[in-house]
């Protein structure tokens, strides 16, 4: 039980690395930086592996969670109480406590694993960059935050990791801080995430106010207790608020806008944070809160619809983007939409499974893209690439595997997870959502198209780059290709963990997660949902859907082949040819950023009117300076005016006839006499005193 008892050490390894970089990084050699930071993550990965192995022994397949409380974080000696909604009191308390169950085990493994690979990759990728130690410090800090997030046993500690990853994302997007676009993107990421965070914190507080605890185990137990009806309004609101947080972190409509811009960061960052790990935190959190969500069908529906819409929306934008990383970014948003679709239809395990497989192939795609960019001397525009397959073969092969995986070609990883989601959406227990299936299906088609487009534009066709660039093209170093290969293996094999029963598999992945989700699914299904269709009867339908989606993948890829396989300089975009307005809209990302700038941030003016936060800020500033401070100054002015009047009165009325008048009177006839008594000779004054003395004496003697 050593590893389970010391589970709190896992986040501390990278934290140690980050602290070392913070204090001594500037003075360290690159090799030392590598040893510390990469070493910390490797140790964390190994530790995590042993921990999960120990946990499986501990749980014996029951999936009972392991909780390890280190110390009380929020709250004193338990006397800080507050009134819950039902009028009873609850103690304000959140521990620095760790929770390990199948859900967090999966995240733990792939976060540390993928994180480790990306750290190794970064050694090669960042070798020539400035701020080497800074980069690795931030990366380690990110690992710390992410591990805190997934190991936390309550919402508040989860929020520490939640905001922590947001901060690291901010720091890493803004890594090239001399570039304004990078810092703009960083700010955008943080602030948009903050909107989500505000929702998240309100959601967590609502839960605490309603249920009296931040702890997942307590909340789950209460949610399972049957005290709360399905559709409980407070729980619905709490779930929706939590989902706002998830939208921010996992880049869902309408808060997805930061993720494409986040590609300003170094590519390993995009791979680690903006593809594999951080953006799945929202999925993790919703899955973690499944007990609450299940009691709130409205929230579930919202999650599903938002997820599906995001998926198709982002995929549509991805169709026409030219920046290789942006395509991948929109692809990520789209895939995240898939995951939420799965969560929303109650297929938590399927969603988590897609997170798991997606981590491999999307990280691989980003790292591969990084390798391409590395080879192209920093060029990211696919219009200037082409015909790279022979020159960087390892990169080409691994990226091809990833593309096939994401497009859903069997038997690669993406096929299993994506089809599971589509199938679940189709036959969802939450009422029939064939529309959602249709959207998902369309998205699959688009996914295949834009991914194939990426591959063809990059690796096929005719070379379109300049000569110097062409001259410099070279395969990346071993430290970069190594992780690519490992991830490629993962992209092939990860799906085999969850082969569905219909294909003769055992769905080991789903079984492993079952204890986390099982009761809830049953509970939610019970009253309203139609009976779960028996496997055998629907196997035919399921196969049919599988075939359909594979066909969609092939068709999408085939279209792309037709348009881009031989793209030379000045190739044309098919959409631009056939529907120019649509192309403009897609190319400009449906003008969402512009709309937000007009409506919410206020960075753009409508005519002379500025709306949004900056508009409100300007209005408030004006109000403050003119009205409030103006009132204060007016009071001052009035006082001064009165004072001036008083001064005039004082000078010409009081001081004039009333004061100076008698004075003049005195001065002229009276003062010479008075001066006799006051002429400055000390002894004269003494004489006056003696006179006074005499006076007193005479008075007393003759009285």
């Amino acid at each position, binding site marked *: 039980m050593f590893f389970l008892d010391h589970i709190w050490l896992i986040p501390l390894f990278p934290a140690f690395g980050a602290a070392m970089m913070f204090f001594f990084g500037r003075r360290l050699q690159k090799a030392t930086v590598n040893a510390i930071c990469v070493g910390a993550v490797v140790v964390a990965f190994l530790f995590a592996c042993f921990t999960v192995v120990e946990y499986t022994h501990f749980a014996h397949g029951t999936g009972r969670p392991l909780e390890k409380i280190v110390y009380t974080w929020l709250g004193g000696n338990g006397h800080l109480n507050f009134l819950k909604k039902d009028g009873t009191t609850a103690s304000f308390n959140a521990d620095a406590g760790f929770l390990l169950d199948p859900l967090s085990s999966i995240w733990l493994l792939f976060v540390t694993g993928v994180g480790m690979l990306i750290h190794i990759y970064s050694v090669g990728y960042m070798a020539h960059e400035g701020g080497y130690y800074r980069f690795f410090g931030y990366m380690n800090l990110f690992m710390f935050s992410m591990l805190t997030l997934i190991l936390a046993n309550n919402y508040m500690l989860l929020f520490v990791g939640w905001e922590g990853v947001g901060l690291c994302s901010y720091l890493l997007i803004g890594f090239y801080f001399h570039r304004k676009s990078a810092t703009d993107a960083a700010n955008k990421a943080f602030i948009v995430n903050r909107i989500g965070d505000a929702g998240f914190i309100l959601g967590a507080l609502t839960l605490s106010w309603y249920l009296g605890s931040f702890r997942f185990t307590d909340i789950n137990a209460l949610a399972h207790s049957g005290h709360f009806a399905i559709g409980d309004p407070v729980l619905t609101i709490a779930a929706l608020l939590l989902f706002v947080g998830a939208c921010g972190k996992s880049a869902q409509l309408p808060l997805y806008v930061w993720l494409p811009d986040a590609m300003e960061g170094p590519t390993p960052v995009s791979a680690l944070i903006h593809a594999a790990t951080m953006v799945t935190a929202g999925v993790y959190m919703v899955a973690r809160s499944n007990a609450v969500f299940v009691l709130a069908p409205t929230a579930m529906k919202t999650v599903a619809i938002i997820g599906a819409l995001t998926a198709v929306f982002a995929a549509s934008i991805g169709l026409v983007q030219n920046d290789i990383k942006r395509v991948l970014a929109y692809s990520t948003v789209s895939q995240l939409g898939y995951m939420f679709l799965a969560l929303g239809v109650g297929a938590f395990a399927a969603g988590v499974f897609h997170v798991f497989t997606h981590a491999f192939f999307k990280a691989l795609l980003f790292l591969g893209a990084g390798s391409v960019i590395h080879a192209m001397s920093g060029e990211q525009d696919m219009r200037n690439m082409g015909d790279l397959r022979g020159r960087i073969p390892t990169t080409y092969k691994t990226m091809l595997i990833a593309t096939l995986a994401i497009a859903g070609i069997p038997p690669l990883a993406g096929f299993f997870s994506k089809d599971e989601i589509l199938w679940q959406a189709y036959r969802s227990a939450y009422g029939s959502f064939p529309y959602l299936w249709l959207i998902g299906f369309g998205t699959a088609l688009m996914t295949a198209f834009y991914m194939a487009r990426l591959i063809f534009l990059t690796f096929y066709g005719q070379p379109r780059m300049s000569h110097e660039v062409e001259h410099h093209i070279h395969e990346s170093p071993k430290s970069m290709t190594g992780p690519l290969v490992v991830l490629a293996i993962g992209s092939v094999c990860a799906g085999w963990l969850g082969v569905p029963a219909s294909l003769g598999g055992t769905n080991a992945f789903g079984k492993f997660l079952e204890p986390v989700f099982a009761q809830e699914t049953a509970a939610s299904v019970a009253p309203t949902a139609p009976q779960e269709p028996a496997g055998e009867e629907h196997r035919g339908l399921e196969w049919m859907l599988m075939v359909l989606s594979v066909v969609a993948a092939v068709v999408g890829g085939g279209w792309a082949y037709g348009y881009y396989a031989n793209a030379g300089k000045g190739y044309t975009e098919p959409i631009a040819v056939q529907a120019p307005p649509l192309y403009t809209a897609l190319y400009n990302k449906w003008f969402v950023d512009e709309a937000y700038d007009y409506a919410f941030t206020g960075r753009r003016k409508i005519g002379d009117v500025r709306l949004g936060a900056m508009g409100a800020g300007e209005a408030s500033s004006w109000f403050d300076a003119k009205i409030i401070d103006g009132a204060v100054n007016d009071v001052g002015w009035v006082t001064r005016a009165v004072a001036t009047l008083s001064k005039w009165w004082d000078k010409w009325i009081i001081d004039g006839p009333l004061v100076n008048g008698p004075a003049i009177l005195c001065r002229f006839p009276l003062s010479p006499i008075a001066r006799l008594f006051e002429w400055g*000779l000390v*002894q*004269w004054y003494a*004489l006056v005193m*003696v*006179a006074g*003395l*005499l006076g007193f*004496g*005479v008075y007393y*003697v003759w009285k």
Partner: protein
Amino acid sequence: MNLAMNSALNSTINSGMAPVATPWFFYVLAGVAVISGVLVITRRNAVHAALALIVTLLAVTGLYLMLYAPFVAGVQIIVYAGGIMVLFLFVIMLVNIDRSSKERRFNRIWAVGLGAACALLALFVFAFTKGKALFPDRGMPLAEGSNTQEIAKMLYGEAGRMGQYTFAFEIASLLLLVAILGAVIMTKKKI
């Protein structure tokens, strides 16, 4: 204890002990005091005036002794004749006496001043003659031997209790301290 002793002393003294000195001794001392007082205010040279003042003070000291006040007499000699007058003499040396000794002694209004003083004297004389009956012929006798102890008791208290004048005494010491500081600061050339 204190009370008993006092009453005992009073009774012995009341029973007819003679005054310390004979009347002519008083007249001599009074005469010396007044004559040298006149010298103080009339001498042109300040040093002479100071010496005359010392004589006055000594004569008054004699009068104190005649009044059973040996402690006050001691203070008078030590503080006045010893301390203050030395101070005066020092100051006289510091300031320019040559010039002042050649100038007018009296100010312009000396006549008025003198008149006022005479009026004051007249008032006194009148008051004394009129109120003569108020004063008893002989004073209450005092214990000369224990005079200093008695004063000490009043100043410092006894048996752990504050005396009647202890606080005033402390205040007086503070006054002296302030006066010293003030004098030092005023006479320092550059502060």
